[in-house]
């Protein structure tokens, strides 16, 4: 049974690290666009987001270890394992999209001051 737990935990850590790498590598591009002259700022924000991502996902991995192990129930054991791992993958997916949302929101906010007028003027009445 300890082998099952070890296998489960290592699989969880593996997918968490893989997704975190994808996030940080591609998020870095977005964040550099947000902080043009400040690459260290972009890097810092990226690291903070990735740290939070790791903690939430690994925490979720550890509390969702498959609980029941039956000596002769291969199908049940497999189902338990798949259930737990599925939960972890879903959590990763939700976190991934939340992160994307945060990135895009930060980016959009940074570009707000230079946004073009939403509606063209109706007419001109001489400069004041």
């Amino acid at each position, binding site marked *: 049974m300890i082998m099952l737990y070890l296998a489960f935990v290592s699989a969880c850590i593996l997918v968490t690290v893989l997704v975190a790498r994808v996030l940080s590598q591609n998020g870095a591009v977005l964040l550099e666009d947000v902080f043009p002259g400040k690459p260290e700022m972009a890097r810092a924000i990226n690291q903070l987001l990735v740290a939070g991502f790791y903690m939430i996902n690994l925490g979720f991995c550890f509390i969702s270890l498959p609980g029941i192990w039956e000596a002769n129930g291969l199908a049940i054991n497999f189902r338990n394992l798949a259930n737990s791992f599925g939960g972890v993958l879903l959590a990763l997916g939700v976190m991934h999209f939340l992160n994307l949302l945060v990135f895009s929101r930060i980016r959009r906010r940074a570009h707000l001051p230079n946004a073009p007028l939403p509606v063209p*003027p109706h007419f*001109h*009445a001489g400069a*004041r």
Partner: protein
Amino acid sequence: MKSLTVYFDGGCAFCQRCKRWLGAQPSFVAMHFIDARSAAARERTGLKPAALLQHLTVQDDTGSVWSGPDAFLVVLFALKSYRELAIELSDPSWRWLRTRLFTWVSKNRQRIGFWVGTPCHGSMCAPVNAYR
């Protein structure tokens, strides 16, 4: 756009409250307020009093004028906390709703004043129609 002049209805307590609220909001550009019933408003925009009182009118520092629902959008666009909302609402898919909403607010501003605790008093109760 470096500054925005809002021609508000000085004869409407609710509008005056909105004006105070607007003035206190952080904005991207300097906000100025001129009573739409004043001669200055007519001179600057070249609009008739009826038009100025029927619709909210705003003007930027280059002289561009917006009137009606679009003026509400430009006001929101000038505010730091509401620019995102203004950009979203400017999408054509919101056109039907925003036109009706802002037109309704303009038309019923005295009544809204009663609902939100800023009823008109004395000379301020002059009906909007009287200025057409």
